[in-house]
């Protein structure tokens, strides 16, 4: 036993030693400092874009992560500096924003309605710094205007895309029952469910059918209570399947993967992905994804930073992602059993929503 350990140790040490044998870089001065690492080698634009997460962190497989990826992407493309701060809890919102202000960020993007007040406070205290906030209007006194003159709200009319998904689901269901559930009952979640419900109802009106929606009636519905626990998504979905639903839209970030697992196990059940195209991001479930309701947070962050850094400059006009500007959209159906007539009808409805003749 001891010998085995010794041999193992020698092997491990030699592996490490060998790994350390590569040649030193030619003319590099002593190791680059930590601060230099962030400034990309191809630095062309002198701009610093920063981001603060909410308590979910940048690895939440949801809107923090989408925003973060958008920031990384635009930083790599433009060669601008970035700095990011994750919030461990609500107490860190203010200090994190302050730390970024102190590190001379030009633009600070905060993620989520929980940071709304902290963002407004920081924006009022630092009029020279530009702010943007995702999924919130930064309007805490509800007078219809943003509370500080240097905040750009980034929001999404997700119900437009979800309406199309609801129509597609109603047209495709075999059982006459579809379902949706959310992570928490907050506006950025229920807007998906509202659109989905409206889309199903629209299909019923147009075709005289009675497709039934489980999990959301416009006021109350099924919520798992968090955006973490996949088992809850699995059991809620199993409940829907037991009640006859064959198409389910989980609006709960990673919890939706639990729903996909339950649907895959049940067979003959389809999932509608949210936020991104799940055929791409969750390929293991590609064969049961009917379509996805895409909310392009990453793209919106990219656009806002791009415009502020190299474009026309920062402006506080709210960014609203719609079907018209492709900020939200329905993903491809790939091989899902959606007939060409339905696809054509969806294109028509999409045009109707864009020109305002159909109200999602």
């Amino acid at each position, binding site marked *: 036993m001891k010998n085995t350990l010794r041999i193992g140790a020698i092997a491990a040490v030699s592996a490490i030693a060998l790994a350390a044998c590569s040649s030193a870089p030619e003319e590099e001065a002593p*190791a680059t*400092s*930590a601060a230099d690492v962030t400034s990309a080698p191809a630095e062309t634009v002198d701009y610093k874009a920063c981001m603060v997460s909410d308590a979910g962190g940048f690895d939440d497989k949801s809107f923090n992560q989408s925003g973060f990826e958008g920031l990384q992407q635009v930083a790599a493309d433009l060669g601008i500096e970035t700095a*990011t701060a994750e919030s461990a809890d609500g107490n860190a919102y203010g200090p*994190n924003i302050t730390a970024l202000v102190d590190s001379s960020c030009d633009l600070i993007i905060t993620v989520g309605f929980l940071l709304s007040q902290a963002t407004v406070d920081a924006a009022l205290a630092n009029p020279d710094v530009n702010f943007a906030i995702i999924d919130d209007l930064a309007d805490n006194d509800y007078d219809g205007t943003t509370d500080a003159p240097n905040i750009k709200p980034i929001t999404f009319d997700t119900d437009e895309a979800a309406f199309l998904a609801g129509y597609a689901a109603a047209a495709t269901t075999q059982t006459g029952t579809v379902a949706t559930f959310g992570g928490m*009952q907050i506006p950025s979640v229920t807007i998906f469910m509202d659109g989905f419900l409206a889309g199903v109802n629209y299909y019923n009106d147009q075709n005289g059918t009675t497709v039934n929606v489980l999990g959301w009636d416009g006021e109350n519905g099924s919520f798992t209570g968090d955006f973490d626990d996949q088992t809850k998504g699995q059991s809620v979905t199993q409940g829907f399947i037991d009640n006859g639903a064959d198409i389910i839209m989980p609006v709960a970030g990673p919890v939706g993967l639990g729903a996909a697992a339950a649907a895959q196990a049940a067979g003959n059940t389809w999932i509608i992905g949210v936020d991104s195209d799940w055929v791409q991001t969750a390929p293991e479930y590609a064969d049961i994804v009917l379509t996805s309701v895409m909310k392009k947070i990453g793209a919106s962050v990219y656009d806002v930073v791009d415009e502020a850094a190299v474009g026309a400059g920062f402006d506080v006009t709210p960014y609203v992602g719609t079907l018209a500007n492709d900020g939200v959209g329905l993903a491809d159906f790939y091989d899902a059993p959606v007939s060409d007539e339905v696809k054509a009808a969806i294109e028509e409805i999409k045009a109707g929503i864009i020109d305002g003749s159909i109200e999602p």
Partner: protein
Amino acid sequence: MSGATPATEATEPQGKQEERGASSVLREILESSSLVVFAAILASLVLGGILIVVSSDDVATAAGYFFARPGDTFVAIGHSLGSAYAAMFNGAIYNTAADSFANGIKPLTQTLTMATPLIFAGLGLGLGFRAGLFNIGAQGQIVIGATLGAYVGFAWHLPVGLHLLVAVVGTMIGGALWGLIPGVLKATTGAHEVIVTIMLNYISVNLLAFLLSKDAFQQPGSDNPLAPPVDGSARYPSLLGSSYSLHWGFVLALLAAVGVWWLMERSTLGFTFRAVGSNPRAAKTAGMSVPLTYILVLTIAGALAGLAGSSQVLGTQPSLTTNVAASFGFDAITVALLGRSRPLGIVIAAILFGGLNASGPSLQVQAQLPIDVVLVVQSLIVLFIAAPPLVRFLFRLPEPRRVKEVTA
């Protein structure tokens, strides 16, 4: 206070009293010497340092050609450690980059602000530990206290002064109520406080989530689960002016520490608590009511945890959210153990934790380190504190004297 009070120290062979289960573990932790606590902090900071070095990209790059130019690796290691500890100092004590002393000292005030809820909750938990009750319920007690206090703060509109007082009392009542439940259950049915308090934590968070989905707890015109901000008249006044986050809640926390010290060391009630904690059977024989003690201890502990909620909703986070308690309820367990359940120790431990938390933003922004490093350092402290023999082995400390504090 944190040391042993000589008058209450007595010798007793350790082997005689064979306590089993959680209470003996708890006792061993409480009786570990200050040296062990200090060594545990040191060990976790060193391990944290190793983690910082290992996770540094520069070090990884330089180590790749270690044999070609070993100096680079050491420079990179020194640099990553240096920038991390500098960022910790800048974030928790004094910002050396600030233009004036008034701005430079802000991190220290931030540290004290972040320590405030931990002092309150730690005092409550420490009280329970010394009475032999492993109360895991501070999280729920903070939530319920904050809920009640915030409701008083935003729904009632009382005169300045009175409003704050009523709101603070509200947080205490909320927390005390949430401590009373496990106390009564333990006293009357023997239900174990660990299980009951953990379950009550879940109930409190979900109860708050339910309340925040109702219009009465939401801002008018919004469906977000975010309560209206507490009225200015119900907030703690700031201690050093409006440019600092430090508020009078910190002073109240220090007063509470003095109060708990007096309760435990000078009052008859505190003597009863300690006697029940040392040996419930002996206390019962001596004519003390053990069930009543359990109820009282958990209720007072709950009220103190509720005050931790007040430093949130009446201090730094005037809008109630489901995240109001952050992880204070659990951090406070560490704080209480680190402070060995003595008020002074708890205050010091809470300030240490406040500093670690306050350094989070600058560690991330200045030193480009993930927030997880701070959490790992904190967790390592717990791990080492919970295993005194491990620390004694690492630092070659002698075995503890066979002298035992009866009044643990």
